[in-house]
Every structure is written in C-alpha cells, then in structure tokens.
C-alpha cells in the first residue's frame, strides 16, 4: 500500500487517475459504438418502412 513518502503518495494517486481515465475511455468507446449501431438500426428500419410504403403505392 502507501506510506507517508510524498513520491509514493503522488505515484499512487496518479495511478488511480490513470486507471480511471482508462476505464472511462473504454466506456466512452463502447458508448459510441452503441450509438452507431442503434443509428444504423434506426436507418434500416426507416428504409424498410419506406420500401413498404412504396410497395403499397
């Protein structure tokens, strides 16, 4: 763990922040992918609706 040495404490806290940054970065990427997939699904559904509409005409 950590002692009262300023270097150890600083390194420990930088590691905490670094790990947090890695975590949020992964989550952000996954979130972007999710939005992309959902966007594509929405587009596909709209195209399908349009096709159905045109077929009925």
């Amino acid at each position, binding site marked *: 763990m950590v002692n009262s040495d300023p270097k150890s404490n600083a390194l420990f806290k930088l590691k905490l922040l670094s790990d*947090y940054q890695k975590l949020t970065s992964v989550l952000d990427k996954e979130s972007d992918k*999710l939005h992309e997939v959902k966007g594509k699904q929405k587009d596909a559904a709209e195209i399908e609706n349009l096709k159905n509409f045109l077929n009925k005409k």
Partner: protein
Amino acid sequence: MNLLLNPHGHELGQEQPGMPKGTDEQSILTSLNRGDAISAERKAKEADLPPDAWGRIENAADDKINKLNPHGTTERPLQPAQAEKVVTLAGDQAILNYGKEQVPFMNTVSESQKALEKNGNTIQEILQAIQQAKKHARRVRIPIPIYGLFQTKKLKDDLTKLEGLNAQLKNPADISYKLQADKISPDSSDKTFIKSLAVSGAGYGVLAGTAYATNFFPAATATTGQAIAVFGGFTAGTVLYLSGFIGLAIGGIKKLMNIRSANKTIDELENLETEMLELKTKNAEALGQVKGINTAYVQGARANLGSMIR
C-alpha cells in the same frame, strides 16, 4: 538556426540526463492539467524529483481527484485510502451510467433506487408527523373547550400533512416484469458487450445486474431470474399495499377527531406508526437489494474490463 530553448538552455524535447529536475515536474503537471493522467503517470514513473516537487504533484493529483468527488473536500493532502474511495466510486458511477444507457434493465434498477431512496425520506417524515399527531390527539382529551378545539385543528393539519406525504410514496418499478420483457426481446446490438460484462468474478448467482444477459448464459438464468423475481414481487406488491393502507387509515382517523374518540384516534395513529415502521424496514431491504444489483453489475463490469484497462 534558432532553437527553442527551455529556461535552462536546453533544446525543448531534447532534454538530457542530469538536467534540472523542474522540467520533469512541469511536464507531469502539464499532462495532468490537460486531463491526461495516463501520460502523467508514465512520466512520473521515470522521473527523479525532490520531495517538494512530489508534494506539488500530489497536490495537483488531489485537485483532480477532488473534482470526481460530488461531496468535495478541502482536506490536503488527501489520505490515500480516501483518494482511492473517491476514484473507485466515480468509476462505479461511470459504469452504472453506461449500464443505464446500454441495458434497459439497469435503467429500471436506477429508477427504482431513486424511488426507494425518496420513499425512505418520506417515510421518515411520515413517522415524525405521526408523532406530532399523537401529541395533538392527546391534548384533544384535555377538557378545556377552546384549547381542545385548537388542538383538534392542529391534529387536522397533521393528518392533512400525512395525506400529502402519503401521496408522495411511489412504487418502484416491477423489475421482474421488466426482466421478462427484456428477455423476450433483447437488443441484439447489446449482445457483445453485455456478454463481456456478464461473466463475473463474483459468480453467476450474484450477477443480478446482468440478468438481462441470461440468453447467453442459460446456467445463470434460474438463480438470477429468481432473485429478480423475488425483488420485483416484493417491491411492487408490498409497497403498493401499504401506501394504500395509509390513505385509508388517515381517512378513518379524520372521522374520529373529537374529544370522545380521542383515545381511539391515538390507537389508530399507533397502528399506523407500526405499519410505517414495517414499511420502513421493507423499503430499506428493497433498497439494499437494488444496491446489490448495482454492485453486482459494477463488479462484473470491472472483472471483465480488467484486461482492457490495464
């Protein structure tokens, strides 16, 4: 040729071993202040700095950590254990926020948690209002006409307040129903990442937070599904029933409000208090279960994201 030099006369980006330490410190602080803790940590591992420089870096790190703390603190330097707690909680919240966005079930859990937390506060207020009402009901018995009428008015105000508080009690969502709905039609786009979250180091059984993913892990279905069903039945049934009871009880008490029925009024208020204490316990249990689901989800996510974030 004009070279860009640092204050020590060395070309920028070409710092030599043995050069003044301040440059490393500044570089670490710059990375940190830019929000690039990964880079700051990498540089710090290689740096050889005097204790006062490490102190300044620690202070800058404390500032960043404090920004992750919704409650904030002026304590300096932060105790390492406290710093770890703040960053861990912030990470947990980031995972839960992601979960709410990605998995409808986790969004429902979050809404239930908010409702149960609010119920907990409301129940506490109701219990205090019941104490007030009992006090005024006892005074109604004092046979001084105007004083008695005055206390009856106060008692009526107490009961009106109780009715208002009662109306604030909300039933949390029936999670068992939500789970079933999600199982029938899971969003295929979620599959890959849910799958990565769902294999928990904590074991399938406690991974209720990712019960949504049971399509991928049939062995986990029975245990997690059952846990959720119990939770959903509990919250939807019990809280709804007691919430209705309060409304009826207060209506009954209002009819009794006069000097001849003061004792009966007090009895009714005590019955109501008993029921509210029971509701308080059950609400706290339900909240514990919701938090357990969140904890399981976070643990599962951390266990499975481990290799991705190291």
